[in-house]
């Protein structure tokens, strides 16, 4: 199964987080918002003007800026 950046997913696509490509700090930060490796996520919507994407994970909606979403590696299912 191929691993891609979260940002590459289309709206309503589902995936599983494989790794965080932004070092320890990013993993720590995402953990504080309840995002862990292994979690399932769904793209709810994305904002225009190169804006953030809104994902759903564990029943919560979290907005992620383009920069951060580009560092989250996921596996489509």
């Amino acid at each position: 199964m191929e691993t891609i950046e979260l940002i590459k997913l289309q709206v309503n696509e589902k995936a599983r987080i494989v790794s965080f490509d932004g070092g320890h700090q990013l993993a720590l930060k995402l953990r504080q918002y309840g995002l862990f490796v292994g979690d399932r996520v769904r793209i709810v919507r994305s904002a225009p003007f190169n804006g953030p994407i809104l994902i759903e994970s564990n029943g919560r909606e979290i907005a992620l800026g383009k920069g951060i979403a580009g560092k989250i590696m996921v596996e489509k299912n």
Partner: protein
Amino acid sequence: MRIALIGQPNCGKSTLFNQVAGYKAETGNFHGTTVTFTESKVRVSGEVLDLVDLPGTYTLSGTNPAEAETQRYLRSEQVDLIINVVDASHLSQGLELTLELLELKRPLLVAFNMMDEAKRTGLRINGPGLQQRLGVPILPLVASKGQGVMELFKSAVRLIKKPSLSEYSPGENSDKARHERAARLTEEFVKQGERRITWRDRLDDILLHPFWGYIAMVAILFLFFQVVYSVGSAIEGPVLVFFNGLTVQLLGFIGSKSFWGEVVNGLLQGISGGLAIALPYLIPFLFGLGLLEDIGYLPRIAFLMDGLMHRLGLHGKAIVPFILGYGCNVPAVMSTRILEEKQDRFLASALAVLVPCAARLAVIFGLVAFYLGPVWALAIYLFNILVIALLGRLLTNLLPEKTPGLILEMPVYRIPTIKTVFSKAWFRVREFLVEAWPLLIAGSVALGIFTFFNINPILNWIVRPVTWLIGLPSETGVPLIFGVLRKELSLIMLWQALGGLDFAAVLSPLQMMTFTVFVVFYIPCLPTLTSLRRELGTRQMLLIVLLTILVALAAGLFVRVLGLILL
């Protein structure tokens, strides 16, 4: 007996705290409204308890300032009981912190808050089962409506008198292990029933729509400001008329040129400035803001504006200070707390204080719109946005780190209760009453005394280099100095300084423009400076003061030169 309230961000701890302690903590449907902890004595069924509201934390091993604070407190202070508030509608995530708290081996009570929300989304939680498994008492709670609050604190008192510790063994002590364990517990004890799709689930389809979302945002903000200005201006006029009459009457007795005449005049101006110019706008503004906050709309704006804010070197969350800035820079600076990175807080504060607040609106409209026409007022607003954007780009290039970007939880829309919105508005109005207003009155009195002793020419001479540079008459010096106390004072005092003459007779149209542009950008007013110092420290506050002077000089000079070329 000391009880600590702990829970994840936006789980409703502060709402619970305010229910029992009166309104003492900032709440909002947004992350991280509590940064420092608040302590209060409360009386519950005949017992006096010390209740401590800790900042929201996802985990005890966190790294941001709020989480570090929480951890330090729980380890150092003698806490008799920990009440763990859990958002029942997001149980799996909340339980991670509960599992971590169990490892502390301290008396613990768990409150499942927002049970109404959980029911709405079709969750069926087996509370008794979970209570038995974890070995800690679990109580249901709807803090926003006050349901279950008394029962919770009665159980707390019982538990403090007869402490018992949980026998539950959480297993491996790591975030990952807790995350998985919490997920398993949720799977076992929570059943997802029929999820009722309501207006709240549909609302984001419009409010976050790539086109309609922006239309709605502009409409909502326009309506918000429209209401604030119509309420404010309806009150401002009659109150000013009343105070002007009172001043004339009193000065008739005392004599307007006497020492006491000047003091009384200054005193009345300070009082009426607060009653007529500040409060009529501040109260509806804070009320509306509280409403938007509690509904949960502000994070939506952050989502919509993130892409555009990146062009200023900031991310979406920093839009909040900018919006607030148009009302008043003080809450704008306070709201930079929601940004995690120190650098972002500095940048957002430095830029937000340049946003023309309601007080500067008075100058822009009273001088430029009135004498030169509303188009020129609009031009000043657009010029202001341009300058902020340029400065944002410039500062981002100078600052060492790049902002890591937006991570923001999108809270579920909530219907705010009148009580919380009211008490929140009051909480902030009180800040104005005790901090800013006395300052304003003192400043006005000082001005009266200066006028009596004829100190103004000296002050004008001191700031002459500035007024000379941007081509203003030297009499504008004192109004500019006192504008630091509050910005609209600079217009009222300009009128006094020019001997009550028609502005158009003394100032050329170009001078009106440069004066107004300078007033918009230079040194933030004293109340804003106070909050800058509180949020960022003295050094960064002074840095921002220096920056605003430079920006104001550059902008004033630019307008002057441009005017000389074009005219």
